[in-house]
């Protein structure tokens, strides 16, 4: 697995990838911060549900809550990246090339996933810091007091928000990986994944209220939002963890049993 991890890192730690990632990080950090702060409502009778209030932002975890909300805009993008990154290895034939050098299929996939998630974790950490800095710079324009952000409580809230976003990314990554492994084609995997997590689940949610408590895309959305009226964050966390385990088992079975002919 370590060899597969190192090999994947050769692909990820390239100047071109760095530059593209840096651009995405800046867009999410600055753009996301502006959208989150601009959309925050004053506390009062008008503010309800899961909407973020200016009072929330003045709390100790306000700075990193901005990151958490900003990162949630990138959920769809994350899902697409993981589906494509796995499916393209099959479609292009590079998974076969890798298997010739690392025939232990599960170790190969595990190393690749760990590398991609480690890279994602690093990118998330940088994004969180940049978002926090951007939020501090924009906060005065919204009359948000950031004094509490630089306390130990603020740090603890930051760690919790980071862990939550990382878990959320991992959930999308594992579901994307499973689709990529099962369907082995970028357009088909993306088509199925986007149709499922996008219109299909939301249509189901509109037609059947309990859908929010059972379907993975809706649970991931609920989790990163810190819970919704329909499903608590902890329930979402546990259910997503079950989905992650199922995705790992299904992908492992497919990987170990199917021929690699492309």
């Amino acid at each position, binding site marked *: 697995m370590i*060899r*597969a991890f*190192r*090999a994947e*890192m*050769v*692909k990820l730690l*390239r100047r*071109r990838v760095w530059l593209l990632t840096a651009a995405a990080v800046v867009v999410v950090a600055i753009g996301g911060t502006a959208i989150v702060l601009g959309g925050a409502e004053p506390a009062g009778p008008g503010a309800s549900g899961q909407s973020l209030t200016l009072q929330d932002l003045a709390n100790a975890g306000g700075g990193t809550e901005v990151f958490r909300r900003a990162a949630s805009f990138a959920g769809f993008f994350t899902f697409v990246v993981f589906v494509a990154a796995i499916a393209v290895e099959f479609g*292009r*034939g*590079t998974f*076969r*090339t*890798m*298997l*010739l*050098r*690392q*025939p*232990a299929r599960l170790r*190969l996939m595990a190393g690749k996933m760990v590398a991609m998630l480690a890279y994602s974790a690093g990118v998330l950490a940088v994004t969180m810091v940049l978002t926090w800095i951007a939020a501090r710079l924009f906060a005065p324009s919204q009359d948000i007091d950031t004094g509490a952000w630089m306390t130990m409580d603020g740090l603890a809230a930051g760690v919790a928000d980071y862990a939550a976003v990382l878990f959320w990314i991992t959930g999308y990554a594992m579901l994307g990986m499973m689709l990529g492994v099962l369907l082995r084609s970028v357009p088909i995997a993306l088509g199925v994944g986007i149709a499922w997590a996008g219109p299909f689940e939301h249509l189901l949610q509109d037609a059947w209220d309990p859908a929010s408590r059972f379907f993975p895309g809706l649970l991931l959305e609920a989790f990163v939002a810190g819970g919704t009226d329909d499903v608590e964050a902890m329930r979402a966390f546990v259910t997503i963890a079950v989905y992650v385990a199922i995705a790992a088992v299904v992908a492992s079975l497919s990987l170990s049993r199917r*021929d*690699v*002919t*492309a």
Partner: protein
Amino acid sequence: MTVHHLPDGRPSVIAVEGLTKRYGDQVAVDNLSLDVPRGVVAGFLGPNGAGKTTTMAMLLGLARPTAGRGTVLEFPLDRPTAYLGRVGALIEGPTFWPGLTGIENLRVIAKLSGHDTRQIPELLDLVRLSGRGSDRFGQYSLGMKQRLGIAAALIGDPELLVLDEPTNGLDPAGINEMRALIGDIAHDDRTVLVSSHLLAEVEQVCDWLIVIDHGALRYQGPADGFLGQVSPVLTLASERPDDLDRLVEVVRTAGFDAARERDGITVPLNVAEPRDAAVALNKEAISAGIVLAELHVQRPNLESHYLAMVEGGDR
């Protein structure tokens, strides 16, 4: 771990028995048994769709056999992790990451197999890509891609090299270059299994041949033995076309088979010395008053024998 030996005592690097692969009703490889001795360059021949790639995929752990068993480097086929570290392979064309440079692609392969990346410049030099290592793989010509594939297969100095149609899609110059490269990388301690659908592409570098068709074995053994299966043919033509029928009678009377062609006759020879038969038939023709305008021995043609074999002529 099982050491399998050929009848002549040489150890087999690849030994399979009854290897079969079915996809639904379609049989891709049919009860194939073959041996590849250590240290040879083995040509794995068969027309497109004969089952070469499927066989190689099973040898390399990419596809699971429906039936049969075998060993590669003395380890059973169902344990590819035990032997693939000593095998380099290029199968179904060179597939790498198009956005990565040649060097980066080789680094990925070296890291995956746990080998030292310091050998990469030497390998690029060997495949004559040292000046293009920093270019992206997507910008390579097909010939360059194939050569990078060979370089990747050579990482770790493998004992067994499996090359699937490395000349596919190359122009004649590229084919010559690839043939020379295969000659360069073959040596006593390394066995090379190279597939092709054209015998002419590999016959010059192979000392062992395996011919399959429709998933079944048609020949395996030394390249010389394959050549020995073919009889030389004597071609005769009379000065006057009217004498051809009489010439056929003369040849048959002399104890040879003769086939009438449009402008002459052909005589398959099952004799050790075809020159003696030519002299004898020339004398017989002169005795019968027939002047020969043409008399020559056609030596065994490997390509035509191969084509006859895979196209059904020898069945």
